[in-house]
């Protein structure tokens, strides 16, 4: 699913990632932990093609990021969904419209799209809010909308960048249970966080601790 070898990335004179290597199989669950500025977000941005790979090799869901053409990046992003700390939803649109957006770009027929969106909203306890503007939702509800949009397409890989950063403990644990449900259906999840409490939710998950762009500790053999 993910194959990284000697990946490095710099912003000017600052090295955000240094010689980063790891393999992650389909269906795996990986926690990326470390302090702010450690390089977690840079790694996630490389994985979904938001920033170009500078050095090293990276293959994600079958896409070679070294040779990927700009036209193929949307295809990569159809396999890799992302959930951000700041939600990245359109506040003036309804919950339904925000979630449906991910399926509309895939030109899914309307009846099928409606069924899929409703099913996901039901699963995330958002069905009653389907036609409410996102601006009227609480932070926790907005985060669930972001998760709904990410999972409604059934991605091979789900990336989450500090998804609980803006939530209180209770909401954070509820959100974590959503990721676990998604993982239980066989999807691969990478979750970047500095909330140590989340790690205890899935003891068998793989953990990588990053500092200053380098891996300082991992609970498994990183490469196969």
């Amino acid at each position, binding site marked *: 699913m993910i194959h990284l070898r000697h990946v490095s990335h710099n912003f000017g004179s600052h090295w955000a990632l240094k010689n980063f290597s790891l393999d992650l199989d389909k269906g795996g669950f990986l926690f990326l932990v470390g302090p702010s500025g450690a390089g977690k977000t840079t790694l996630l941005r490389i994985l979904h093609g938001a920033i170009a790979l500078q050095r090293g090799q990276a293959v994600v869901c079958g896409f070679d990021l070294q040779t990927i053409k700009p036209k193929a990046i949307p295809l990569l992003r159809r396999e890799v969904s992302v959930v951000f700390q700041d939600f990245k939803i359109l506040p*003036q649109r309804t919950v339904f419209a925000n979630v449906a957006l991910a399926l509309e770009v895939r030109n899914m027929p309307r009846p099928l799209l409606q069924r899929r969106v409703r099913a996901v909203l039901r699963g995330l306890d958002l069905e009653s809010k389907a036609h409410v503007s996102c601006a009227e939702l609480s932070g926790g509800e907005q985060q669930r909308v972001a998760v709904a949009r990410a999972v409604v397409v059934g991605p091979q890989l789900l990336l989450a960048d500090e998804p609980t950063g803006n939530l209180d403990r209770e909401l954070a644990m509820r959100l974590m249970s959503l990721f676990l449900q998604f993982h239980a259906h066989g999807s691969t999840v990478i979750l970047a966080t500095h909330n140590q409490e989340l790690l205890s939710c899935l003891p068998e998950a793989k953990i990588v601790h990053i500092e200053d762009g380098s891996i300082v500790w991992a609970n498994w053999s990183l490469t196969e």
Partner: protein
Amino acid sequence: MLRILIKLIVQGVTDIRHHPWVQVLTLAAVTLVAFLAGLFLLVLHNLDQELKRSQGEIQFQVYWKPGAEMVSVQEQWRDLERLDGLKNLKTFTPEQGLEVLTASLGSGDEFAWLRGQSPLPATALMTFAVTGEDHHAWAKAIYLDLERMPEVEKVSFNPLQLDLARSWGHFSNRVIWPLILFLGLVLALVVGNTIKLAQVHRHQEVEILRLVGAARWYIQLPMLVTGAFLGLLGGTLALLMLKGVQLSLKDLLHFPPLWLRLDFLPVDQALIFLAIISGMGVVSSWVALREK
């Protein structure tokens, strides 16, 4: 594929509802700028038309003696119609002269007591196309012919008119068209920047669409359509406002001796005007997307 294209084009128009205030303010700004530019263009167009009309033309005004026999004067008017180079002849009996004077002064029935005994002379306003090489000699010959007619008291014409007509022609070619091009450029830049700012407002939407795997054309097409639609709508509203202004001012200068009538822009110029504004909507939306 066609279905998707149609859907995205329709979406480009309906997307306006997502940021109604931004779009309404943008539309207002585009309309007002286009209206101002259109007003300027309208004045230039009419000035240009007038200059073209007056280029190579000269006007003589003939005044008969007060109390001159009208039957004889009207016979002379018929003779005048046969003169070489005459493009237009407007004649006024003393009564018609009084009516025109009353109308131009807007004095209602103030001169009613003069009806039937107008003290004004019979007059004729004649417009000639200048012919021959020596314009001044030709004008002088006409002047003398008119002055010699029976019961004519005075003939007026401005010899400078000949030189002015020619100079205005040069002015029209050297100033008015460059001015129109400059105006088009200003209009394009202001409209373009206004629409671009409105489109930048949608950066979050673009970012999210990219995030969920939308192809470049899928993101760009509706935004380009929005830009074109705003330009087209703003340009159309501006043209409607211009038409209103033109209709209300049409006859404002249509009185002697000016006889100027304000015409609306010709269809080809109006279409070019709309095309420039819509085109700038598309270009500026594209620039806004590239900057994100």
